[in-house]
């Protein structure tokens, strides 16, 4: 099993949820995060003084998938979050040791 962590633009969440649902993964966790990559942040102004918002709000999606679904999941995520501009985000994949469904006590692929 693999955990896919995708940091994406917050306004893309609805479409991503639909897309993941369609490929069989309706259950995900999202966290509101802040950060920046190579772009330096946003310049705003307050009463004539400029200030820098260093960290830009993004949304992190975490979903655990079966090994064979990994590429399909990443395709969906990339396709639905890409705009072509700086700030589209990043996706990281880590290995998941075990997974358990709390309601039934199922281990392994039955838990996903």
């Amino acid at each position, binding site marked *: 099993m693999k955990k896919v962590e995708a940091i994406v633009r917050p306004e893309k969440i609805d479409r991503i949820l639909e897309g993941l649902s369609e490929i069989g993964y309706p259950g995900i966790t999202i966290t509101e995060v802040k950060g920046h990559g190579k772009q330096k942040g946003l310049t705003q102004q*307050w009463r*004539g003084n*400029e200030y820098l918002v260093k960290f830009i709000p993004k949304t992190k999606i975490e979903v655990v998938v079966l090994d064979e679904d990994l590429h399909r999941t990443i395709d969906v995520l990339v396709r639905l979050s890409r705009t072509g501009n700086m700030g589209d985000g990043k996706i990281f994949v880590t290995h998941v040791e075990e997974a358990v469904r709390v309601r039934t006590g199922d281990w392994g692929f039955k838990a996903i």
Partner: protein
Amino acid sequence: MAGSVFPISARDRKVKAYRLMMALVIVAVVICCFGSLAVAGDPTGTSTGGKTDVAVPQGSSPSQKAATLQDEVGHNKISINFVWLFLGACLVFFMQAGFALLETGFCQKKNALHVMMTNFMIFGIGVCAFYFIGFGLMFGGVGPLVSLGGKAILNHEITIGGWGFFGGKGFALSGPTYDVGIFLFFLFQVVFMDTAATIPTGALAERWKFSAFCIFGVFMAAFAYPVFGNWVWGGGWLAQLGVKAHLGHGYLDFAGSSVVHAMGGLAGLMGIIVLGPRFGKFKKDGTPKAIPGHNIPIAIVGTILLVFGWFGFNSVSTLNGGDLRLGIVATNTLLASCFGAVAAMLYMWKKTGHPDPSMSANGCLAGLVAITAPCAYVSGWGSAIIGSIAGVLVCVAVFTLERRFKIDDPVGAVAVHGINGLWGAIALGIFADGTYGAGVNGVSGTVRGALYGGWSQLLAQLIGVATCIVFVCVVFYSFFRIQDRIMGIRVAPDVELVGLDTTEMGMPAYTDETPDLMIID
């Protein structure tokens, strides 16, 4: 029908009882319909209120009738004024909410509750102090309140060489000042005092010790505001410049550009000088850094509330509901506020590329502050000009105070109230057009500014403005310096960094955002 638990005879009885009840209801409705034909109502309003409401005893002679009617008319005339002042007091009181929202929105979230508390408690502390001491000092010698009954009760002014300096009657509204007119007058005046007292809570926000603020509240309400107020409104020497020194009608300030706003704004400036800027506001080379407010929408709502209350602030300062100049005053007030808002918005748009919301709000208020002194004496176009100048002036003042003089004013109180309060007092001496003010301060003829030949009025205004600046700056600089030496008026740096809510207030403003709230057993 579902099977009944009761025997048939009991069910029968229930049906019969129901039918009897319905019959009684119908009879009652019919009786009511016909019964009301005895006396008809008045849906058009033409027969409500008339001679039957004025009791003239049977067999009165014509002159007795006339006397009764005269009494009644006089009572109604005064009653209108009572309703007028009462309404005005409520409107001006409501400005507290406007200031609270405005200032809190302009400050950081970690200090929201502290700013709210200073704006709220200034009303509590201020009223108490004004009741015990301030009102007597300010109005003890103002003379008969003609529009509220006209009794000569507040007749003790302390004078030196015939010039009045402060009042000596009416402390704690005791003795003969327990009078309906004086009580209402107190109500109207105390809310003006609170407007002045609440202005420094914005200027000194985010680093002021709450205990120091409490003492400031007493000082402003009991001494500083009343003394200057007496000189202008209480029959004191600035008002006497007309009769005693032939300078126009003496120093005039219709609703308080200087008495209220410049007093508050300049007191705030003195406080800022003693308190110092917020931590991190200025870089080492002196350039200012932005510390954005946390809720500008709420600040804008606060501004709108202030405009609403200002209709009471300016118009009801006629003190007379039958003085129909109030129509002009109210519209002048609105014109200045809107021209000020638009002027500020356009200025910021040109200068920074954005129509700055917080500055537009400040521009609106600057227009209101600036029109507060001249509102009864100028025309519509005069108000538009005064407001437009105020809107630009406030932006220039904010930049100059911050960048040139390193004054850290989180809400722009000094620029809005201090600078524009003084501009308003001067503007009266320029734009007053002679259509109102006959006999004010005991001088015959109407009030004229320099544009209409009233150069002596302008001189009186300049004297008043200079007095205001010197008085407020000397009094408050001394007050804050001495207070700082005795008890320290600024919070400790670590308190300021964490935020004044959790430290001085003991709780955050928005507790639902506190993570892992543990109920302590």
